[in-house]
């Protein structure tokens, strides 16, 4: 079985300061991990993915995430927040425990960016 816990439902930062969105996962197999972003009234957009290659993954818009197996974590970071980063972020896990590579979403973290 697989599951994802996003530790913060809301995160507020000032523009230009670092962003940290926390995610812990549980998986019976070697997982694939993803971060998606959802802007208001828009579809989910893939930010980045980890699929057992380099543990530090770089994504779009300056975001990156580090896979830490010992901590079962996959936190999302960005050095400097922009106003346009305000959105809902979802951490997602997928493993081989099901034939369909089903995606299991976390509950989401709403990122607010203050001017």
């Amino acid at each position, binding site marked *: 079985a697989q599951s994802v816990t996003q530790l913060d439902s809301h995160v507020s930062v000032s523009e230009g300061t670092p962003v940290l969105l926390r995610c812990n996962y549980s998986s019976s197999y070697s997982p694939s991990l993803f971060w998606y972003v959802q802007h208001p009234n828009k*579809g989910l957009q893939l930010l980045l993915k980890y699929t057992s290659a380099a543990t530090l993954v770089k994504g779009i818009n300056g975001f990156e995430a580090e896979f830490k197996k010992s901590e079962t974590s996959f936190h999302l970071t960005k050095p400097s927040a922009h106003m346009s980063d305000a959105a809902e972020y979802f951490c997602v896990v997928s493993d081989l425990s099901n034939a*369909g590579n089903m995606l299991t979403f976390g509950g989401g973290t709403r990122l607010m960016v203050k001017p």
Partner: protein
Amino acid sequence: EAGVVQSPRYKIIEKKQPVAFWCNPISGHNTLYWYRQNLGQGPELLIRYENEEAVDDSQLPKDRFSAERLKGVDSTLKIQPAELGDSAVYLCASSSDREGRNIQYFGAGTRLSVL
């Protein structure tokens, strides 16, 4: 390349009325998914199609929900009759075997409000 297209974007109906959602996946994507996203939560899978065959519908409430994917391209999801608890965003996604099923592309969703 066009993304996943869903319509309508918004739908408001009274309870006990029927409603249908339409999805056109990315061209060449053989796997299609319907998700439901309740307010403040991550999406949850309702049904997955491989071409025209529904291969995972275990989370679809079959007493009132139905789906079809004739010819293995477009898909419709229907609710009849709708209940107040069906208010949610219904997301469609698609994936290709070439990229892998866990790389899913999402549409903007249909926001359903049942009054």
